[in-house]
């Protein structure tokens, strides 16, 4: 299951009334939105949305019926088990080692504020101002200790750029942290704080 589907499914499962809804769906052959709503004392629109959501996820089947009145939908379960499995490895950066060769340094006239940690040998946060005028917002990023050490050793603007691996070595950051270092490098490059040469 991909992460987006899992997130949608989780949102439906976390509703207060979801357990009662599934009890109905398991024990009824099929049920309409108005029947479920009256049974659970909720608004028909809420029941309709819930059932349509489950239909979209393929957990419930929706059938149009005609009983001498205007057509409506009846819903029945298509599965008795819901398996929710997410492979978080899909987020892992591909070939993290390749990105370590990128040359980096601080961008000129960036205006970001680096907060020095108590021990004084690394940064604890970076504050960046985004936008202009009334739209100007403060974006503060709290850093992990390896990220703070890395940024403390980041070459200044106009200094000779160094590879991410070299900066990590200078900062005494273990290679195990390379993915989180690259994450902050990519984010700060996007925000215009770091220049990738």
């Amino acid at each position, binding site marked *: 299951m991909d992460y987006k589907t899992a997130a949608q499914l989780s949102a439906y499962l976390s509703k207060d009334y979801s357990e009662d809804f599934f009890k109905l769906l398991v024990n009824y052959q099929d049920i309409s939105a108005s029947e479920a709503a009256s049974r659970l004392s909720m608004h028909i629109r809420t029941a309709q949305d819930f059932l349509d959501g489950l239909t979209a996820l393929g957990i419930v089947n929706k059938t149009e019926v005609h009983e001498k009145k205007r057509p409506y939908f009846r819903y029945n379960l298509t599965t008795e088990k819901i398996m929710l499995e997410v492979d978080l490895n899909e987020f892992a950066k591909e070939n993290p080692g390749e990105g370590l060769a990128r040359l980096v340094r*601080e961008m*000129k*006239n*960036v205006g970001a*504020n*680096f907060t*020095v940690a108590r*021990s*004084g*040998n690394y*940064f604890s946060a970076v504050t960046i101002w985004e936008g202009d005028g009334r739209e100007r917002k403060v974006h503060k990023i709290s850093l992990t200790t390896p990220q703070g050490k890395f940024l*403390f*050793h980041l*070459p*200044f*603007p*106009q*200094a000779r750029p160094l590879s991410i691996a070299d900066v990590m070595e*200078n900062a005494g950051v273990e290679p195990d942290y390379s993915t989180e270092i690259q994450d902050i490098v990519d984010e700060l490059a996007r925000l215009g704080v770091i220049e990738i040469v």
Partner: protein
Amino acid sequence: MIFERKTKDQNFLKVVWFPIGVILTFFVVASTAGFGPAFYVIGGMFLLASVMPFITFWRTRNAGFLAVAMYLVFIGLVCISAPPAIKDKSEVGLIPLFLVGMYGLMLVVAYLGFNRKLKWRGQEVFELAAMSVEDTGDSFTARPRPTGQVPISKTEMIRFVDFITTNLIAFAFREDNRIVFVLTLPGNDIPYLLGIKKDYLEDTWVAIDYDGNVSVNITQEDYLLFKQDLDFDQLCQSLGNVFIEFLELSKNGRESQIIDRMNALRLNPFL
């Protein structure tokens, strides 16, 4: 030593505001209330002013400031003792003794002043740091920079801190894992001496931790002291190197060479 100055001259008013203020006060009070009250007022001013060098002596252990404080006290005593003696010559009292003390201490203070022993040496450190930097470019950034490592024991560090503080090279902040040396220019030292300013984060500093890691921070205000936009990365590195060199000299017991290097710059002893 012939070298090209890279820092701007400091404002002369920083040094002369007090004597000018005293003279103006004297004449204003003398013209309105007479010479007697004028002497009492400026005598009070000198006695009040003597508190600051006492505090400087107490915070830095620089004995020169004790001489300055005593000099100001003697001037104050002369001024306060003068009005009765002007009216009646027989009321001279201790004035001759005060005058001897005042003139004696004036010679001591003048000697110390001309030999740069009463001057915060931040600008001289900046000059030494800038000496090796030739590249220019708009490259300022408001963040500290690690500049190297120097092996140091705790005893050597304590000795170095005492030397740097006593000789007015920098104001030292002691932290759990490091010492932060704040570079101070003449006139900017008062908040630190009075203990008003306990945070150095917005000042120029060089920090040395007990593992020997050296890091440097230069503020924009101090960066503007330089006549040119020197390459900021090189300037920070050079400032770190200056302190590493000072530390090495101190470890080898050659502190006098540090003073000689700064005196050789021949900057104005009072600015």
